[in-house]
């Protein structure tokens, strides 16, 4: 073995930090890149198919009804208020507030999933009708998986925060990163919303 020369001592370094110092932050960013690539390519497929057509929807089909989708959009954008409050509370280590607000987030998630069910019903086409129908069903399904997995994540984290582990620094970092990810979920919804509900109306 090579002889060693001791330099700095790292025993007093923290074991958790918010933001890019945290290893899981990089994990979340990586997932965002991967899912982002997936969505971008689905968008590209949408425009590719649309580019072949004179009209969109290609045949005389009704565009999806606006009510459920727009209601969903409003609720998910408003949920950012709760989301930001959670982020603020966890940075201030106000754990009782975090617990309360995360419960609200879980409930909002359930509401969103219910509205999403109605959205599927209001697409006015079946996925087997043609490629236009297939791609808008695919986009809605992809985003639904997004909502579902993040909602489940939030649920599990909420359960964990109820315990003493809510006071653990690393769990607080988890909460903060979960808030970051939720922002991504509704950000990605905006182009999907436009592509399903508005572009067929142009």
């Amino acid at each position: 073995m090579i002889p060693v020369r001791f330099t700095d001592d790292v025993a007093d370094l923290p074991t958790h930090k918010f933001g890019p110092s945290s290893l899981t932050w990089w994990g979340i960013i990586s997932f965002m890149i991967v899912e982002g690539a997936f969505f971008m390519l689905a968008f590209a497929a949408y425009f590719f198919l649309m580019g072949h057509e004179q009209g969109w929807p290609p045949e005389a089909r009704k565009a999806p009804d606006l009510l459920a989708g727009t209601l969903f959009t409003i609720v998910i954008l408003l949920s950012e208020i709760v989301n930001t409050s959670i982020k603020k509370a966890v940075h201030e280590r106000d754990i009782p507030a975090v617990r309360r607000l995360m419960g609200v987030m879980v409930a909002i998630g359930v509401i969103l999933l219910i509205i999403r069910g109605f959205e599927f019903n209001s697409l006015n086409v079946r996925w087997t009708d043609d490629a236009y129908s297939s791609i808008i069903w695919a986009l809605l399904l992809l985003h639904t998986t997004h909502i579902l997995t993040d909602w489940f994540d939030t649920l599990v984290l909420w359960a964990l925060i109820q315990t003493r582990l809510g006071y653990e620094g690393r769990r607080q970092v988890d909460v903060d990163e979960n808030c970051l990810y939720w922002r991504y979920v509704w950000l990605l919804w905006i182009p999907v919303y436009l592509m399903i509900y508005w572009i067929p109306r142009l």
Partner: protein
Amino acid sequence: MTDAVRRSNALKSRRAAEAERRDIEEDDKRLAAERKKIARDGPKLTGAKLEARLLRTWQRPPGIIGWLATVDHKEIGRRYIITALSFLALAGVLALLMRTQLARPDNNMIGASRYNELFTMHGSTMMFLFAVPVMEGVGVFIIPLMLGTRSTAFPRLNAFSYFMYLFGGLLLWGAFALNIGPDIGWFAYTPLSGPQFSPGKRADIWAQMITFTEVAAISAAIVIVATILKARAPGMTLARMPLFAWTMLVVGIMVMLAMPAVALASSMLISDRLVGTHFYNAYEHGDALLWQHLFWFFGHPEVYIIFLPATGFMSTMVETFSRRPIFAYPIVVLALISTGILAFGLWVHHMFATGLPRVGYSFYTAASMTVAIPTGLQIFCWLATMWDGRPRFQVPMLYVVAFIVTFVIGGLSGVIIASVPLDLQLHDTYFIVAHFHYVLIGGAVFPLLGVLTFWYPKMTGRMMDEALGKISFWMVFLGFQLAFFPMHFSGLLGMPRRVYTYPAGLGLELPNLLSSIGAFVVGAAVLLFVINGIKSLYIGALAPDDPWGGSTLEWATSSPPPPYNFAHVPVVESKTPMWDQQGEMPVITGLRVDEKETLLTTVVAAAPDLREPVPEPSLWPFIAAIAIGVVFITSIFSPWSLTIGLVPCAIALTAWFWPKEIKRNPEPVIT
């Protein structure tokens, strides 16, 4: 509820919150006291005593449970490599069968359907089950050692990725063994692979194998990228990072951006086949070319994902065996990054014959030629290093020379087919088969064989047999030329690809016969290499820490390394720490020895940033892979498996992250 009741409830909850706050403060004081008593490495705990203590902490349980639950990157990396080499052998046998069939014209040894299965399995296995996994496997094994750290990031995700890869491979080969293997080519063009022209489950099995291997590759890429960015030794700035680490960083990001394309494409294909969507159906406003665009948007970066790690192998071996650092390190880094970026702009060159607008094609010709520039610069840098140094030609360096002689031919034939008018004759002929085997075998397999010989002592603690290594080198190098050079001519003489036979009288007899003979020489050579690898495990010379006089940190620890990699985490002050240390290795102190802990540093400057607990071995990655695997496989038969299967998968993933006990520890521990 009356005001009074409301006020009373509010008072109760405020009191409860107060009580909890006081509890936590008491707890905090207790934990702080316990923290002071934790044993840490340093001048007071070093040498053999430290190593014994670290071994107790870092060793995984023995037996089959321990094997399934391990999170040691060295074990996982070895698994990846051995599994990938097994798939290489299987796909190689298929190649020998194909070459036997093609040795003579109008041969009827293998029928049309079976032959179509063979080339589908050969291509799919080589591309999805060998080439990318072996690169990730070598990366997963060596990167933490090269970077001077104790573990990869996300070790359980690493373990999970291996099992997903294995299950995908078993799915494909299990289906082949049961005679329901795919026969649509490794690229599965629609509409041939669609519901109308490929009835049955063969194409679905192919598409779902993609899903498995793509999940595995993306997971491994996330592990590697996070490790490279956050877990480098203190002082190892990005500008001091080994070139192989740079290649894995670029490749990891490429995987994250490219793999989703094939995942999306194959999911849409399964959807067309299973539930009647029309993504690829031209008669219902879909487009068969949508498949090609999505597939090649993945497919072209894929070949650079395979090639770039091999350039990292080249840099490693050229540096070590020329006895000097690589010439123009910044140029090599820029070349890697620009190749990675450019690779995403070339995909239409696979579609020159599909009738897209000609003016658009010119862009892809220009881009496809441009990508030769960074690669050409890298080659100059390696040759310059050899010229300026004093190269020693042990076996790994022989493979370096084989790369130069072979890959450059493939690269130049690539420049030829970048031209649209030339490609329109050569596309889909044996000229292309020659081209990509020259770049893939010359450009990736030769460096791989060299680097496996090079890192074999680090992986196993023994040296491979040098004499046997030289014999198998010459056999594989010369056999390869015999097998693949004539294929340029087969293509020019009119032989298309993916044909189970060809007529006599076209002049194809001689080139095909030569190719078939050469293929068997290559097969024998690979067999010899494997024999060398296996025999050296038992009777190879015992390897010292640093048998080659290397420049990077993996050579600072034993061969093979202990589970914790380094007794003390090293500090780095140059690009070639082992050559510049002047006899003593600077190290940091203060990491705990009673639980698994490693150091995270900042992304660019690599200053010590956080202490990070490393997870204990866990069976949940394996169980989650089983649950997800079952969902993937059953979803070939019914879409309901996706909804039903969500439940066991959610349980497995939750259990993975849920702590074993709800307890506050003085320092975090991941159980």
